C-alpha cells in the first residue's frame, strides 16, 4: 500500500462536480461515496503520520468524513476542496492527540512510549531508520510536525499548505526549514 495514499485522483470526477453531486439530494449518496473513495487514502496517511496508531487513524478518518459531510454545504469554494479536507483531518488529528495527552500525561515519556508503541504495532513494519524518523518528527512542536509531514511526505506546495494551516507562505517556509534541521539533528545525535 502506498503510504502517500491514492494520488491518482484523475479517475474520479473533478472536485466541483463532486461538491455539486453531494449537495443535490438525488446524487448525494453517490457523490459522497466518490468523494470518500477519492480522498480516503490520502487523508488516512496524513492522519496516520500524526497519530501513529492505525486504530486512532481509523477513528480520526471516520470523524473527518462525518464532519466533511455535515459541513460541505457551508464550504464556500474559496479554497480548494482538498486543502479544506486536509484542514479538517489535521484539526481532528490534533484534537485526538491533545485528548490523549490529557488522559495519559503523554508528554512526559512520549519518545519512549512511541518507540514501544511502534515496536508492538502490528501495522508498522519500519526498521531502525523509520522508527528513528518517527521519533524525530514526534519531538517537533505540533504545528511544525504538520508542516514537516505535509511538505516532506505529501510534497504539498506552500500555497496549498497556507490554505490548510491558514498561515503565510513565508512563515511556513521558515517553519519547514527549522523542522528539517531539528529532525536531521535528532537523527545525527541518535546515530552518534
Amino acid at each position, binding site marked *: *500500500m502506498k*503510504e502517500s495514499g*491514492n494520488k491518482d485522483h484523475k479517475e474520479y470526477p473533478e472536485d466541483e462536480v463532486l461538491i455539486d453531486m453531494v449537495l443535490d*439530494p*438525488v446524487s*448525494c*449518496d453517490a457523490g*459522497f*461515496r466518490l468523494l*470518500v*473513495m477519492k480522498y*480516503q*487514502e490520502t487523508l*488516512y*496517511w496524513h492522519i*496516520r*503520520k500524526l497519530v*501513529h496508531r*492505525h486504530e486512532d487513524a*481509523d477513528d480520526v*478518518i*471516520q470523524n473527518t*468524513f*462525518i464532519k466533511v*459531510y455535515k459541513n460541505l454545504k457551508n464550504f464556500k469554494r474559496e479554497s480548494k476542496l482538498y486543502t479544506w479536507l486536509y484542514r479538517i483531518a489535521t484539526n481532528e488529528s490534533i484534537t485526538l492527540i491533545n485528548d490523549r495527552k490529557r488522559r495519559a500525561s503523554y508528554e512526559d515519556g512520549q519518545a519512549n512510549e512511541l518507540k514501544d508503541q*511502534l515496536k508492538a504495532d502490528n*501495522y*508498522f*513494519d*519500519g*526498521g531502525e*531508520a*523509520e*522508527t528513528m*524518523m*518517527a521519533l524525530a518528527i514526534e519531538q517537533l512542536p505540533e504545528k511544525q510536525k504538520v508542516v514537516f509531514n505535509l*511538505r*516532506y*511526505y505529501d*510534497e504539498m506546495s506552500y500555497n496549498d499548505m497556507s490554505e490548510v494551516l491558514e498561515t503565510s507562505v513565508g512563515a511556513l517556509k521558515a517553519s*519547514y*526549514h527549522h523542522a*528539517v534541521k531539528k*529532525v*536531521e539533528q535528532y*537523527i545525527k545525535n541518535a546515530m552518534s
Partner: protein
Amino acid sequence: MKKKDNRPDADILPERTGYQVPNGYFDKLTDRIMDQVDIPTYNETDLPESYFENLPDRIISLTKTEVPSNRVVKMSGWKKYMSIAASLAIFIMGYNYFSSNTGSDTDMVVSDELILQYLDEYDVDLETATLSELEFIQNEFNMIDAIEDSDELYEYYLDYHIDDLPANELEEIIK
C-alpha cells in the same frame, strides 16, 4: 540512510514511514464511512404507485387552469359557442343591413370590424384558439355564405379560403 532525490530540502532522511494497514482496509473503509454519515437515500419508489398514471391528467388540468397570457377564455365550452353563435347572428343582421342599404365597399370593413370585435370580446385568440373553435367559426361562415349568396360575401369568403378550396369548388364560385 539512503539519499533522497525528491524530498524537499532533506537529504539524509528516509522516504517511507513503515506504517501499514490491514488487508482490504480501504475497500471496507468507504462503506463504513457511508454507514456512519447515514445519507437519506433518494428513492423513486417513495412515490405513490399511481403517480405516473395520474400525472398526464394532472398536467392537463394545470395547463387548463394556468394563465398562458393576457388573454383568458373564462367561459365553459357550450357557453362560449352559444356566445359566438349569437355574435354571428348579430354580424349577419349587420351585414344584411349594410349590404341592402348602402351596398358600398365599406361593408367589408364593417364586417371585418365586427369579426375582430367578437374575437376580442370573447377572447378568442387565433394564435391559441383550439382546432374545434376554428372549425366552428369556419362552419358559421359557411352558413352565412349559404344564406346570403352575395357576391361580396363570396369575395370576403374567398379572401380567407381561396387557398383551401378544391379546384372544382373554386370554379363553382367563380361562375
